């Protein structure tokens, strides 16, 4: 701990040459008893940038700001031993630090300076070099560290940008729905397009929409909803044939591509089995979540000419909507030529049921 008092009387007074002071304190100022500059260290001379400073008033050169403004010599002397905040009048935006000692025998004072926290800007603005600092002054090491930090931060930023970009690319290319482990929308589109391009196509597309799913989500939370979706994923993964593909293509909507279906009766049986499995109550947090499913089906065999993917998806969607309107928990096979009801967001539940459309498998 540095003593804040001037040297005790008993200590011998030593003499130091101006050259020695310059070497030890290249940023010092020595002033006489009237506050006139007698000598300035070589670095401070460079910073002041106005040639020889001898004879100038100390207060024309520096402005003392902390711990309190000092505009007289006695006010300045009272700051002896304290940390002084000051600026050069020529560069009032660069905060410097100082320490002051009065010289014995009323011979004036020495005010030593350092660059404080504005060192990086100060070094640049004053054009300082390695030789301008005392070997004991760690300002240069601080500057080194400052530059090193900037470089390594840039490297870290590049790394995280590259990782983000790689993740985005991977997600864009992903073919799996992470929650259910089923195919995602992108993968299903690819599979359907491939099935349609087959020279001898024979497949059926099934669209499954969960009934009462929103109620589960609203009353028991998203975690319960996720548990139900995972269950449906498991049903579809475990109860379809090897060549069939199931995907989750929306919040609670699924598509299933069934290859080489064995006629509409068989399709209806598959759908009924899936509905029954999906209706198995799912335990969650001590409760049982009960849902059902409505299914629309469009089969290749029902088309006179090759449909495009949009037509196929519209037809299967229309069949699903018919199933929903017919009272949920059932399946409807698209009938070519049948009017296609449009599904609208926020459709009210059907009031007086229209005559139920034919239900294959009944």
């Amino acid at each position, binding site marked *: 701990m540095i003593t804040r008092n001037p040297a005790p009387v008993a200590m011998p007074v030593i003499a130091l040459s101006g050259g020695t002071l310059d070497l030890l304190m290249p940023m010092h100022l020595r002033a006489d008893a009237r506050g006139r500059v007698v000598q300035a260290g070589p670095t401070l001379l460079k910073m002041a940038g106005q040639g020889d400073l001898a004879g100038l008033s100390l207060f024309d050169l520096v402005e003392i700001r902390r711990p309190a403004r000092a505009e007289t010599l006695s006010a300045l002397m009272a700051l002896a031993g304290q940390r002084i905040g000051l600026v050069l009048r020529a560069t009032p935006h660069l905060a410097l630090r100082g320490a002051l000692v009065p010289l014995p025998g009323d011979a004036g004072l020495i005010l030593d300076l350092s660059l404080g926290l504005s060192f990086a800007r100060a070094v640049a603005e004053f*054009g300082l070099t390695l030789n301008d600092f005392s070997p004991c002054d760690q300002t240069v090491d601080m*500057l080194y*560290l400052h530059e090193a930090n900037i470089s390594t931060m840039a490297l870290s930023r590049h790394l995280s940008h590259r990782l983000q970009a790689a993740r985005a690319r991977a997600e864009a290319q992903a073919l799996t729905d992470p929650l259910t482990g089923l195919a995602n929308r992108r993968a299903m589109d690819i599979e359907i397009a491939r099935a349609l391009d087959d020279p001898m196509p024979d497949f059926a597309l099934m669209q499954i929409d969960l009934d009462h799913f929103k109620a589960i989500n609203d009353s028991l939370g998203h975690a319960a909803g996720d548990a139900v979706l995972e269950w449906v994923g498991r049903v579809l993964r475990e109860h379809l044939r090897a060549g069939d593909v199931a995907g989750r293509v929306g919040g609670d909507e699924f598509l299933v591509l069934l290859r080489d279906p064995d006629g509409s009766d068989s399709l209806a049986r598959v759908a009924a089995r899936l509905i029954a499995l999906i209706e198995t109550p799912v335990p969650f947090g001590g409760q049982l979540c009960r849902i059902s499913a409505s299914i629309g089906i469009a089969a290749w065999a029902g088309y006179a000419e090759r449909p495009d993917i949009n037509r196929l998806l519209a037809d299967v969607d229309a069949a699903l909507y018919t199933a929903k309107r017919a009272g949920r928990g059932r399946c409807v096979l698209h009938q070519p030529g049948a009017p296609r009801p449009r599904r609208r967001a926020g459709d009210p539940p059907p009031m007086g049921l229209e005559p139920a459309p034919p239900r294959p498998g009944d």
Partner: protein
Amino acid sequence: MHGMVNRALQGFVTATYGPELWAEVRSQACLPFDDFEAMLHYPDALTLTCFDAACHVLHKHPNALLEDIGTWLVTDPHLEPLRRLMRFSGASFLDFLLSLDELGDRGRLAVPDLDLPRIELERLDPSSFRIRAQWRLPGIGPILMGCLRAMADDYGALAYLRLDGIEGGTECLHVQLLDTAFARGRGFELGRGVA
């Protein structure tokens, strides 16, 4: 080995010989990714495999390749920040030499987990020095020689350097400093890096 070391090998091959050559090194070394990341760590064996592959693909003696990498680290314009950090070590090439034993601490200030060589400098007479360097991989001698030759040039000093044998795991260099102000050297403005 730290990603910076691996990245230096990749950077040198790519900058000097082109990305196709690096692709060949990568495939010979069976590198399981495209690029080394400077901020990650890799097994030493992977670094050595890549280095061997680079020697093979470039038909270069290992020492020659290491020396070229050392030189490139100081002279490549894209690595100006690194050159600047080196120049912080001293105002003259002599000061730089005399502070070589601080290199490890200096490196750790910049990158705390970077394993830099331990370097000792012995002054044999006023102008000649023996440098002893230890690192976790062999080859620090030639790297350091390339790097010091480039730094002498950077300061405008004239120096004669040669490899001076290996004692145990310690690789030695001999430096003869012939002229500290032989040429103008490259500039180094202290405040330019962050202004």
